[in-house]
């Protein structure tokens, strides 16, 4: 009897210990994930001269909104915010409409060019000319550099998203298209008035990915619009501030007086404030839309 009880007790103990340890490990992982984010927020709300000393955790040591106040007196940040929003919205709308339009036409089995176009599109996922040929095309041949359109025109299509949408359309009942056709609707009307509205769940996911990608993009500004201050995006503005602080960090590495060097570059508090501002839209939207994000990953996983 006592042996069985001992075993039972051991089983019980195990059943408590494992979930507890597991939970602790996962909590630690969440902490490590969130710590840099919280730390950045804390530094951005800290007093500037105090922050240089370092050692701020997840709560400001000397609270101050000075970084944000000086950030928001800078005209450039409003402009950059506007450019970021504009490119994100326009890219997302164009990309989703054009990609789903193509997906619809390639989902029609009777379409004679279906096989050819699909092949051409799918191959783009495997072949890429590389950075410089693309750069030469966009800046030298098409002369898109130093314009706002360089943010929009090269990013209007993604084959991966097209396949995701097409898979969804193929799953819709064929009778919808047939009956609309009997009623005399042309293919464009069928797409725009019947298929497009029905695709909203998958389009929401695709739109989110396109929007996040566009919002987070900084490299195209650097490549094409580095000399045009009024075309800077938020991400690129942040990148510029990071570059100056990187230099000062290296100076601090060799010189004794790290403090003097650090004050020359963009103060760490302002850098953190820009980081917070440029991450804020994603941080705010993300928890509510997380399930769409994950649906997208699962859809992609099925195909990939």
């Amino acid at each position, binding site marked *: 009897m006592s042996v069985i009880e001992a075993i039972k007790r051991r089983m019980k103990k195990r059943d408590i210990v*494992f979930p507890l340890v*597991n*939970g602790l490990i*996962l909590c630690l*992982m*969440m902490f490590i*994930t*969130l*710590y*840099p984010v919280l*730390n*950045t927020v804390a530094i951005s709300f800290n007093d500037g001269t105090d922050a240089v000393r*370092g*050692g701020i*955790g997840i709560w400001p040591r000397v609270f101050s909104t000075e970084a944000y106040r000086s950030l928001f007196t800078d005209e450039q940040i409003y402009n950059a915010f506007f450019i970021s929003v504009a490119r994100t919205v326009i890219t997302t709308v164009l990309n989703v409409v054009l990609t789903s339009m193509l997906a619809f*036409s390639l989902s029609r089995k*009777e*379409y*004679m060019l279906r096989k050819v176009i699909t092949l*051409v*599109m799918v191959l*783009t996922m*495997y072949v*890429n*000319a*590389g*950075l*410089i040929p*693309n*750069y*030469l*095309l966009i800046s030298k041949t098409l002369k898109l550099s130093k314009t706002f359109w360089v943010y929009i025109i090269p990013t*209007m*299509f993604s084959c991966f998203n097209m396949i995701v949408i097409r898979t969804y359309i193929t799953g819709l009942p064929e009778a919808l298209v047939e009956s609309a056709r009997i009623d005399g609707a042309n*293919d*464009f009307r069928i*797409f725009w008035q019947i298929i497009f509205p029905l695709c909203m769940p998958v389009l929401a996911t695709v739109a989110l990915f396109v929007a996040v990608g566009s919002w*987070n993009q900084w*490299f195209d500004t650097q*490549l094409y619009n580095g000399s045009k201050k009024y075309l800077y995006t938020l991400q690129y503005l*942040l990148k510029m501030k*990071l570059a100056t*602080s*990187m*230099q000062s*960090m*290296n100076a601090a*590495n060799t010189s004794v007086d790290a403090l003097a060097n650090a004050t020359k570059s963009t103060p*760490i508090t302002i850098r*953190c404030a820009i*980081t917070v501002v440029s*991450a804020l839209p*994603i*941080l705010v939207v993300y*928890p509510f839309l*997380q399930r769409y*994000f*994950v649906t997208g990953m699962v859809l992609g*996983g099925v195909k*990939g």
Partner: protein
Amino acid sequence: MKTIWEQKWLMLMSVPMLLYVLLFNYYPMWGWRYAFQNLDLNNFKQGADWVGLENFQWLFGRDDFLMSIRNTLAMSVINLVFGTLSSILLAILLNEVRTRAFKRTVQTVTYLPHFLSMVIVVGMAQNMFSSNGVVNSLLLSLGIVDQPVFWLGEGKYFWWLVGIINVWKEVGWNSIIYISTMTSIDPTLYEAAAIDGAGRFKRILHVTLPGIKSTFVVLLIMNIGHLMEAGFELQYLLGNPQVYDNSRTIDVFVMEYGVSNGKFGRAIAAGMFKSCVAIVLLFAANFIAKKLDEDTLI
């Protein structure tokens, strides 16, 4: 002819996109001819001369290009090993959680960094790893080091920093595929194992891990096909003159010589080399996948 007219709307909806893709995805490949020309900013207008393989000879005579190949491969392998192990570990831990709400919270939190831009991530990394940042204070207070370490200023740490940052950013996201594979494992397998007296670790070892084996192999092979893609943004943003020998990947090299110095021909040659190796790796990976498919998978 009649079908062409009937399908005019379908064509209107797809042919413009076809032209778009031909221009933006296929036409640039014509630019690969510059790999065999001495094209740069100076002679761009009047046209360059054919120089044969000179650009390639120049590349392979340069230490910084050879180092960039080494760095690309090294960081790829580090990313592959740590990225895979960490996401499988997270997936296993999450799979053992019985509280729904807790599981969902952990997932929501760990997926988050995937959606932050690399610029933001590098900014945060600078705060974390600076000489008076939290990593140094932690190590100092634990007595592991007795002086702040210049994590970002010394080449020997660079690869590992990239590995750590990538794990931090992608571990949650990469675990999704493993989690969804684990949820499709037949629960009766776990019950049978439990009846046979297998404890929790035994069940993980003999049921969960075999259950994700095929996913693991498929992803591993796909990643081998992408070994030349060590990333560009992170190395470009985090790199600085002190660590260039360890931070420069092939993509960074192409950026430096092609865009910053205007040596288009040489940069395209470097990019072309990378693409060719990548295609060979991709074919090799597919070949291995087919072989394995016949022997071990399923």
